[in-house]
Structure formats: C-alpha cells, structure tokens
C-alpha cells in the first residue's frame, strides 16, 4: 500500500488530475457535512449524502492517492452509513500511514466499541505492543527516513573518529548504530508485507466460522461472528480464508464476508 507505483504517483502529481481530485475531495467533505447536519432531521437524505461522500473519498483513493487522513475520512463516512466492518478496515489502513494520530485512534476505538463481538487479544500480542510501542506508533516511512539519517550519521561519525581520534565521537556513533539497527529490523519486519493483504475485518453479520474451506465443514464456534471482527490472514484457498482471531482462535470464513487490507 505504501509503495505506490511510480506511475500512479506521477499521475496524481500531474496538475490537472490533482486539481480534479481536490474538487472531488471538496465535494466529499461537503457531502459529509451536509449529512452530519441533517442526520437527525432527515435521516434518508443524510444517508444519501454520506453515501456520496464515501464514494468520492473512495474515488480519490482509487485514483492512486495514498494518504492516512484520507483513509480516516473514508472510515468516518463508512461509519456514518453503519458499515462498521468497512469503517474499521479504512481506519486500519490509515493507522499504517499515521499510526500516532490521536483522532484516528479515538475513532478506531469508537468503531471497535460498536462491534457486537468483543474478542480480547492474547497477552503476548498486548505485551509486544507495549514493549515495541515505537514500532507500532511510528509510520513506516518515518522509521525508514530516520533509519537512513542515522545510518548516514553513523558513517560520518565513524569516519570522524578515524580522522580525529581525540574527539569523543565513539559513543555517539555507537548510539547511532544501535538505533539504526533497531529501526532497520523494525522496517524489515514490515517491508516484506507491503502491498500484501495480511489483515482483515468481517463486513457481514452472522458469519459462521468453519473448520475448513467449505460449507460442508462444521462450525468452529457455537456463536456466529458479526461485522467489525478483526483477524490475521493465514491462508487463502479459493473463495475461503483461514483466519486467526485476536484471541488466537483460528477458522475459515468466506472471502466475500471480509475485507482485507
């Protein structure tokens, strides 16, 4: 997602298309405001406005714009339309680009609070998120940029230490090296999955999780799941997906009942 094709970026950067996209965005924001203003007075026309807003945000994204705030706005439009699963998917996409954004965190939290199934995450995942908070809170592009700067700085300090051994450059160089290695590992964890769909969210209600990739398999859980449940994609097989839920449980769901991101 992050590494957009050069062609798409070049297209978006071209003046004319950029102007058109800006007009689309302006219309989408206007439609959202119109919907917000009338949602308690005329719910039907508000829904029409939110739908227009959602479609225009989506059109800008489809034109090749990769932007966290844009995905956030799209999530808001989905949420106002009651499309909880799609809203969470849009927020999660945004969180890969602007993970530290407080508004995004608040709205994602709110959307998750509306889900029917509240599945707690395993302790290991929570601990990992606590220890490596910087990995989860810094956007990949910030980590890569900071890593490059530290990398360059390390070589400059190392060269400076050779040229002027009396200057105290050893420890700063060591610090640069350690931080750079941490950032490089962090980026290396995320980079291979760029452009690959690895997470997902259910977008349909009463989804029966099965023990295998077909309707003929028995249900995995007594309870069906509802839209908004997030998962990790393990495997894709035909129109079915093997998924891992936040509590570590696994099972198969139909691909059409979920959105991957």
């Amino acid at each position, binding site marked *: 997602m*992050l*590494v*957009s094709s050069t062609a798409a970026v070049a297209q*978006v*950067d071209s003046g*004319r298309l950029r*102007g*058109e*996209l*800006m*007009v689309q*965005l*302006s*219309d989408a*924001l206007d*439609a*959202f405001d119109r919907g917000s203003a009338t*949602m*308690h007075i*005329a*719910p*039907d026309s508000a*829904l029409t406005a939110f739908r*227009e807003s959602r479609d225009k945000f989506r059109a*800008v994204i489809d034109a090749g*714009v*990769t*932007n966290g*705030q*844009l995905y*956030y*706005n799209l999530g*808001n439009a989905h*949420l*106002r339309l009651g*499309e909880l699963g799609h809203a969470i998917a849009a927020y999660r996409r945004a969180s890969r*680009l*602007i993970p530290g954004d407080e*508004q995004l965190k*608040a*709205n994602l*939290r*709110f959307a998750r609070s509306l889900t029917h199934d509240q599945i707690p995450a395993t302790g290991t995942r929570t601990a990992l998120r606590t220890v490596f908070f910087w990995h989860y809170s810094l*956007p*990949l*592009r910030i980590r*890569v*940029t900071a890593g*490059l700067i530290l*990398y*360059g700085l390390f*070589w*400059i300090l*190392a*060269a400076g230490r*050779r*040229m002027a051994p009396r200057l105290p450059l050893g420890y700063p160089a060591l610090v640069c090296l350690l931080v750079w290695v941490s950032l490089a590992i962090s980026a290396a964890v995320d980079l291979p999955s760029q452009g690959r769909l690895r997470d997902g969210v259910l*977008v349909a209600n009463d989804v029966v999780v099965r023990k295998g990739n077909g309707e003929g398999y028995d249900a995995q859980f007594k309870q069906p799941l509802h839209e908004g449940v997030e998962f990790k994609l393990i495997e894709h097989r035909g129109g079915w997906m093997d998924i891992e839920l936040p509590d570590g449980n696994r099972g198969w769901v139909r691909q*059409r*009942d979920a959105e991957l991101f």
Partner: protein
Amino acid sequence: MPRRYSAIATSTLCLAAGVALGADIRFGVSPRETYVGMTVQVQVVIDDAKDHMAPVFPEIDGAEVRSAGTSRNMTQMGRQVSVSQTYTYHVIPRRAGTLTIPSISVGADGETFTTTPTTIRVLKSEKGDLLYVQLLGDRNVYVGESIETTLEIWLKPFEKDRIRMDEHEMWRTVDQNNSSWGPFSENLQGRSPQVSYRTEVRPDANGKRQRYFVYSLNRTVWPERPSKTFDAGGVTVVVNYPLAARRSRFMLLGGRHEVTNRRVISTVIEDSPITVKPLPLAGRPARFRGAVGQYAIHASAAPAEVSVGDPITLTLAVRGKGRLETLRAPVLSLQESLIADFRVPDEELAGVMEGGARVFTQSIRAKHDSVTEVPPIEFSFFDPQSEAYTTVRSSSVPIEVKESAKLAVSQVTEGSAGGGATTKLTRIDSGLLANYDDIEALVSQQTLPVGWGTWSVVAGGPLFFVATLLLQRRRERLVGDTGFARRRAAHRTALATIHRAGTNSNEPLAAGIATALTGYVADKCNVPVAGVTRSDAVLQLRTRNVPDVLVSQVDELLAECESAQYGAASHADANDLAKRAQRCVNELERGKL
C-alpha cells in the same frame, strides 16, 4: 436584464459548450421521452461564475423533483482555469402525458439567466400484469410513529420456449440503480441484500391464475409528513423485463440463462394501506420536541456535594419505544422548577446512544445553598397508542449545596483563583471525531521515500568511510616516510629540472639533463643526490632489475651529456637530448622503478 437560453433536450444529455469569458449557463435534460416513475435527469451547469446563487427549481405538477447533488469540475487549458458548478435534479413523472419543465432562474455575477421551458413526453409503462409493487404495514399511523413495513415486489417469471427463469435470475432483472428505493435502499446495501422471496399465485387481468415471485423487503420506517397513502418516499421499481432468453453458454460461471432481448417496465407503489395522520395540535405541551412513542426519563447528577456556582453534570437518559437515534433533548431552560434554583445553559444538548438509551448531559450550577435537590425533569412526547400527548418526569436527585468558599486576599492578588469556580468537564469518549479537511494534505502522497537519494545514502556511507580511511593512511605515510615523499615527487622533479634547464641560458642544457636523470634515480632509490655519478645511477638501475635496454639508454644519455658539457654541442642536439631524457624518465616511471 434577463437572457434567454434555449434548452437543449436530447435523448442523451447534450450540453452546449460555454464561452470562457464571463459567467455562462448550460442546461440539459435527459431523456425527452420516458415512462411514469422513470427518472429524468436535469442538469444546470454554471460556468466561470465568480459568484452565483443556486438555481431555484420550481415545483412541477404531476412530477416529483429531487435534488441529486452538486459537483464542481475544474479544467485547465494552458494558464486558463475554467470552473464549472453542476446542479443535478431528478424529475420523476407520476402520470402519463406531457410534462413541462418550467423556466429555471439562476443568478450569476449580477445577471439573471433563465432557461426556456422544456417538454417531456411521459408514457405509461406497459407493464401489464408482469409487475406489481405494494406496501404492507399498519393501517393508521401518526407522523414520527414507527411502522414495520414490507415492500412486496410481485414479478411474473419469464417462461418462453421451454425456458423458465428462476427467482434469482428474475431478481437480477430488477434495475436497482434506476429504481428509487426510499428507506428500503438500506436492504440492498452490501454484498448480501436483505430480500426474501416466496412464490404466490394471483389472477391476472383476464382472471387467469398466474405464478409470481414475490420479493419482500422489511424495514422499520418513520413517516416524516402526513399522507393519505404512504408511499415510503416515492418508491419506484424499474425492471428490465426479458422478452427473449437462451441457455447460457457459460452456465458454470454465471446464470443459467442469458437475456437476449428486454424492455424496461416500471411502477410505483400501487397499493398501500398506510395512512399517515398529522400529530394533533390540541393538547400539545409547550415542551414537546417531536418525540413520538412511549418513553421514560431518568436523571442523575454528579457530584452530589458542591458549592454554590460549582458545575453539576446533569445526565438525562431517555429510554423507551420510539426513534431514540433522532430524539431531541428536553429544553432545560423551559423547566421552571429547574431554572428557579439552577443556572442552565440555553444551547440544545447533543445526545449519544448508550446501552439502549439516548443520553444527554448538561452542566448546571446551583444559585444558592438552600438547594437540596435537582427537581424532576419533564419530557413530553406523543403516545400513538393512547393518541394523546404525555409528559413523564424523572425522579428528583438529592444534592448538597454548600456556601461558596470566600477567596483569600492572597488568592485575589495573585489571581490564582480565576474569575469563578472551576468547571470540571466530563469527557464523553464515544462518538465520531471530525474529518480532516486540509485538501492539500489529503491529496498528498504518503509513500516510502525510496529513490536515488536513499540508495545514495546507503552506498555513500561506507564509501565515504573507506575514502576517509584511504586518505588518512596516505597522509600518515607521507608524514612518516620521507623516502616515500621523495619517490612520489621524483618524476615531477626530474621533468621540471629538464624543462628549467632548457629555458635557463646561464646553465648548459646537458648538465641540467644529467642532474635531472641522476637526481631521478637518487630520489627513486632513496640515496643522497650529491653522491650519485653516472656509474652509480646505472648500478642502482641494474640492482632494481630495470630492463637492460632502458639502462643502456640512460647510460648513453648520461655519457652524451658528459661529452656535451666538455665539447661543443649544437642547440638542436641539446634539444634532442632533452626530449630523449624526458622519454627515458617517463619510461622509467611507467616501469615502476
């Protein structure tokens, strides 16, 4: 002064090109011939207007007009930017005949533009007995009362030439995009539409019993205005009914049959037993805010112990049977018993849904310390079951109000106490936060900065370090090894000496060449220059395995130099000697002496 523009109405929308200079208006209607219930699109395009008023679309007898939104378009040709604002309207004819779209007035840049009336031919959709649409629900309801409705679409299955389309294939003939679904559009959202079907038999126009697929869409609706026959916001169903079909060649990939010929039929709700009555004016309480249903109100206040003027968070929770999502809060400033003892803000409360209740919070402040409770809060609604307005009250909430603490002199002088009591705000964590609206930022790319700059840094770092390392080693060698410095400079020194000898008329050229050659050998071999004779030079060259040919050349050159010093040598001979000496030095240098 009004200008008249003729309407361009064609079967496909055709918009005339505008003039780039000044405001211009374009007007389009599509199509010119349609069926009852089918949407006609009307577009008003305002080009290059610095300022304009939105068009006023007049009401049309026999048709319904709906705004379908506005859009802006910006085009750039060279340095000239053209901005168009398009207003789109949907006109839905409700009866057959001729429909006239009257003049539309648009004010732009101080001028008034007016379109000419346009006529559309509206045909009755010859749907025959192929399609019926009816709405089921409670017979008599009030505005705002919830009704469980069912939209039933009766569609006669296509049967011809031994081809019988099943219920799924027939549902696909319903043109969902061109139909108007009103509140039932929610049922069709997402990948699995909430539509059930059954098979029924009903007599056709000739009294013959025919089989129909009946598609049912269930939804709770809240009528917003009174009407004799509730049509759920003008539901219109459009069907591309098959005239001919054949067995699909790709049966495994798609449906069983593919339609080879079709025609459009449409209809509105033909049968609706629902009558929507207005809310009675008689007995309407002053505090009534439009709530219809049956509700109960509960109040709570926190903190329970405050000083006069301190904020108290009053929380009102309204539960019950009705449309809680759009419920408006009771106006606290109209509650006499409350405003007698409390200061209450005037603004309308924004509510949130929590645990099946609509919850409103407001900060109120006690006016005096004799207040002992928050009085009951009244909430009025119309109860459709008893067909009367009802007012319910919350229980009173006991509180303790102390006298306001007096400010110490030091607090006043230091200003630490501020102007009044501090307000402790209670944050509501639920609810949606606003959109980002910086369009420049929204359209910017947030991609990975991987390009030539990145690879330059990746490769440049180690290269820079290696270059520094080599530079440092070279410097150390130059400083610590004087012989190395002499060897590095030997070639340059020898050539310079030969050149200097050629230009210096006071010194014989041959002597200079000899000094250059012996000096070169001495520098390369790191021996004192003063002690190197012709034979020493030759010996040093042989010791360093210089090819015999080259050693002989050096020896001959030195010998000729000696002869020239003591004999008479012509200027041409001397120049030739210098050139040969240069070549000789160059060859020795190439041979890594």
